């Protein structure tokens, strides 16, 4: 049961958020509240339903009705259907089958409508995890405008013709670990772990890997109102937080990949988010950009070299 002081901080926070909403403050005003304890609070997502759509407030999206024929003929329709059919974790436990089937149709439509509205953006497996979370919180129309907005800002990086830019930016996780814990960085490098273990974390905002709905939406609060690379910063914080588990695991890529891929649901996310904010202040994205580009270029050259001379590995 919540003690009085717990209730009071939540009440205070709720009032602060409501006051920002009433005063039509811009989205940057919400950033601090999203990072601080409890995010936008889990009061049946009531605050989220009002705050998340503010992101798309300035987006004058012309919401055109798209025929179901047009949706079915979209180049990514079949892929989206295959992925949406297999969504498990994101539905509330014990959900009625008919409601689930209805949500699956709606999330498929949502994704295709966003892709049609944003010509040039490509669907990736994992985008469906983002879409279902938005749909569950916001409903059809609001999730459409918010997802459109986020696809132009945060997910654009992952939605290009290929995933090379995604591969490049994942190096940020290593760059940050290197700055914070050199021994850990050396250990991971020696194992040749690579970056794919944190790919689903970054591109689904942890939606694909965590089971707990409240944790996922709490993380969405943070990612939505901060720099598009924030999920990479949190990924680095998770790796740093698990340093002792990593050192206990043999320095072998498969074992480390397996260990890190399983993100425990009970990580102290509130304090990890505070760490993320600190890390972003210490190593701001604009400073890290150059480091990340250099790391990627080096890796690319090594990869090409090994393809020609595999015996040098």
């Amino acid at each position, binding site marked *: 049961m919540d003690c009085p002081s717990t209730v009071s901080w939540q009440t205070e926070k709720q009032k602060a958020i409501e006051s920002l909403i009433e005063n039509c403050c811009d989205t940057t005003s919400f950033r601090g509240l999203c990072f601080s304890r409890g995010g936008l609070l889990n009061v049946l997502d009531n605050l989220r339903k009002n705050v998340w759509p503010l992101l798309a407030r300035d987006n004058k999206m012309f919401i055109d009705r798209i025929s179901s024929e047009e949706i079915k003929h979209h180049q990514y329709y079949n892929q989206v259907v295959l992925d949406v059919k*297999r969504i498990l974790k994101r539905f509330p436990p014990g959900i009625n089958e008919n409601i689930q089937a209805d949500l699956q149709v709606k999330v498929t439509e949502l994704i295709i409508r966003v892709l049609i509205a944003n010509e040039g953006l490509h669907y990736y*497996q994992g985008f469906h995890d983002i879409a279902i979370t938005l749909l569950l919180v916001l409903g059809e129309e609001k999730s459409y405008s918010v997802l459109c907005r986020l696809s132009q800002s945060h997910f654009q990086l992952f939605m290009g013709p*290929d995933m090379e830019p995604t591969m490049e930016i994942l190096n940020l996780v290593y760059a940050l670990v290197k700055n914070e814990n050199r021994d850990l960085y050396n250990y991971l490098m020696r194992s040749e772990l690579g970056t*794919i273990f944190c790919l689903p974390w970054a591109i689904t905002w942890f939606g694909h890997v965590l089971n707990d709905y409240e944790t996922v939406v709490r993380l969405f609060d943070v990612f939505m109102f901060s720099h598009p690379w924030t999920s990479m910063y949190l990924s680095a914080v998770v790796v740093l937080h698990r340093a002792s588990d990593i050192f206990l695991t043999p320095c072998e890529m498969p074992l480390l*990949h397996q*260990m890190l891929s399983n993100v425990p649901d009970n990580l102290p996310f509130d304090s990890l988010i505070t760490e993320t904010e600190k890390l972003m202040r210490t190593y701001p994205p604009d400073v890290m950009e150059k480091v990340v580009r250099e790391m990627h270029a080096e890796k690319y050259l090594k990869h090409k070299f090994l393809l020609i001379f*595999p015996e040098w*590995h």
Partner: protein
Amino acid sequence: MMEEGNQGNTSIPASSASSTASSTASPQKRVFKIIVVGNSAVGKTCLTYRFCEGRFPGRTEATIGVDFREKVLTVDGEQLKLQLWDTAGQERFRRSMVHHYYRNVNAVVFVYDVTNANSFESLSLWIEECNDHQLTTKIPRILVGNKCDCRETQVVNTNRAQMFADMHNMPLFETSAKDDSQANHIESIFMTLAHKLKNSRPMMPVHMSQWQKDNDADNIPFGEEISNVRLRTGLICQPTTSNDSCFGC
């Protein structure tokens, strides 16, 4: 066939220990890296899960990036560790992401869905992708047509698949990760692969230091010695050296 252990984070010795092992110490297991590729939703995750965990996982979500599972098998008295890398099916992942996992691969499992023609037609692309990463016919490669419990909706004709497999010098297996009666068949498929791996010198073994010198007599290049595998159906699966094909479903 004996199963020693499934995936887990503990009790697996560090590979570095093998480099100091003396000849009298208990031999380290040879480790083989196997990559499982194919289109989305053909059942790569279910297939590897069935093999490593011994059961159908029920429903599975889309794999993003790669998942890892492993299993230890005993083949002719030698314990081999098979490491299975279950990859994402969407093409954009294949192009940009998976190359990290193609390195040092000892065998490839190509998977298609017998009820989905597109997944079969895409196999050429997957083969091309492997060739680009030096994973040619020099290493064991097998073709698996999954979901054959759905016979009524099968669209990929077995003869056509067999011809394709022959053309690419691979054995073909049609099976079902879902059907419990096929569980032994899936074990047999991987056992076939394990035999091939045991009897072939890996191009680039994951742990070269674990290679046992006293095994050299058995180290016949892939394709020259093929072991029989008794399938659940009672058929003997004996791929021929000419086309190296086998079908036992």
